């Protein structure tokens, strides 16, 4: 394992320290609890947004804390949901009297821990509610599964629900639009290589020199198909086929598009993939809204691969996507 780290057990704490030093004025970090909060939290009378999850997906989630997006993000150990203790701390730090809204990616650990945190917050007299994002179409939903996974589309929920909260929506209103965004978005990922979590020091999975995996999860959970690598256009066709073939009818609508790098994929390849995404969407009568989101939004350490997300927009969501925000993941150049 080759990493620019000091000690595996300190990576999250040291990363948070670097983030805080780099973005003072924007965020502060409650170090004992691994929680990133808006520097000016709590914002009185605004619904506060809290998200979180395992670390290793940077800039998710700490990079999205700031004006117009999250009020706090809880950083778990690498790929491990944070604990209710962290979440409660975040909740208390950001509650401005209008309640706290949790954006939770659909993984058993994240859901259970946020549920427990909500109970603890209730006990302290803080009203909470939550949305569970499950945009990944790779693995089919059924009565037997824990449901679909939440992946990069979650960042759209951060932005839209964050702007809605900034705009003064109440807890129910924030929940409604978060659910609406989640219900209208679909994602799918693929990977070429495994990442190596620092603590185990081993790749999560083995994959051949010529193989790719379609539907790979952001923690290296296996996807739906392992096969020989194909040309970019064909990979995009397959991913978009699955997304467009799902239950949201994107055709004829304006759609926010994200092409998200998982960590080691060169920006060159993301743009190259986007060129074909744009072609397919045009052919299918799907209109790309505004500027597409091409870059690293939710990574998986140094995994090579990417995901595509489509979000079908209405006017309110468009307004909230466009609304100003100021977060560590943003940059002027």
């Amino acid at each position: 394992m080759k990493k620019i780290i000091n000690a595996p057990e300190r990576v999250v704490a040291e990363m948070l320290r670097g983030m805080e030093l780099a973005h003072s004025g924007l965020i502060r970090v409650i170090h004992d609890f691994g929680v990133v909060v808006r520097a000016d939290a709590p914002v009185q009378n605004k619904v506060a947004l809290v998200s979180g999850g395992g670390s290793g997906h940077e800039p998710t989630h700490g990079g999205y804390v700031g004006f117009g997006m999250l009020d706090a993000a809880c950083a778990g150990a690498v790929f491990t949901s944070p604990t209710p203790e962290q979440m409660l701390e975040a909740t208390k730090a950001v509650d401005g009297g209008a309640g706290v809204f949790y954006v939770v990616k659909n993984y058993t650990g994240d859901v259970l821990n946020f549920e427990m945190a909500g109970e603890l917050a209730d006990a302290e007299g803080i009203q909470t509610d939550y949305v569970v994002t499950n945009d990944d179409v790779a693995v089919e939903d059924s009565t037997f599964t824990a449901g679909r996974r939440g992946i990069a589309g979650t960042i759209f929920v951060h932005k839209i629900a964050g702007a809605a909260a900034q705009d003064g929506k109440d807890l129910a209103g924030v929940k409604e639009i978060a659910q609406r965004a989640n219900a209208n978005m679909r994602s799918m990922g693929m990977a070429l290589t495994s990442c190596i979590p620092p603590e185990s020091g081993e790749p999560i999975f083995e994959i051949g020199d010529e193989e790719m995996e379609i539907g790979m999860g952001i923690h290296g959970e296996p996807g739906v198909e392992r096969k020989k690598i194909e040309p970019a256009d064909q990979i995009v066709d397959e991913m978009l086929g699955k997304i467009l073939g799902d239950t949201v009818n994107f055709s004829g609508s304006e759609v926010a598009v994200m092409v998200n790098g998982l960590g080691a994929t060169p920006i060159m390849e993301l743009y190259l993939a986007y060129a074909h995404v744009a072609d397919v969407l045009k052919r299918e009568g799907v209109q790309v809204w505004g500027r597409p989101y091409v870059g690293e939004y939710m990574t998986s350490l140094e995994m090579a691969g990417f995901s595509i997300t489509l979000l079908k927009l209405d006017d309110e969501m468009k307004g909230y996507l466009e609304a100003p925000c100021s977060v560590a993941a943003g940059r002027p150049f």
Partner: protein
Amino acid sequence: MGATRDTLSVIQEMATAMEEHRRHLTQLDSEIGDGDHGNNMHRGFQAALERLAATNPETPSDILKSCSMALINKVGGAAGPLYGTAFLRASTALSEKEELSAEDVAAAIEAAAAGVKQRGKSEVGDKTMVDALEPAARAAKEAASSGKGVGEVLRAAADSAGEGAGATVPLTANRGLASYLGARAAGHMDPGARSSYLLLDAAARALGA
């Protein structure tokens, strides 16, 4: 006093087991999940030991509760709330008791298994720790009702948990990260079922069984 000392040595033995099997549990989790289960359990039981040392609880119930809080607060992932709930329910089942009978221990294991099922919304056959815990609870109850002692009850529970864990190998997962694997989860043991066996086995060994 005897039950308190025994419970402490059970937790100690569990922590040792999690330390020893850390890599293997992580490896099992890599096959079908995200490769953190060993680290999660190890972190949790280290936190439990610290908390016990700091708070010095006096009854088996308080020890288990302290352990539960450490797991809930420090583990995260799915295992944190699930094992946290298990220990919390066991603690509640033993509340006010200073000495423990075989029946008490069986009832605690049963409460723990029921807690995990409820919180995780899972059943036997879903390829989770429930596949180890539910047969363990049944075996413990049988052993207790046929007059076995505390150590033997734990041994019976551990052995059944081991079988249950083994039985997860051919299964497809329906819960947890492994569920995203579909049919490809088959052929690998569930890491949480394995850790459940290891914890019960440690408990039995702590009591010389």
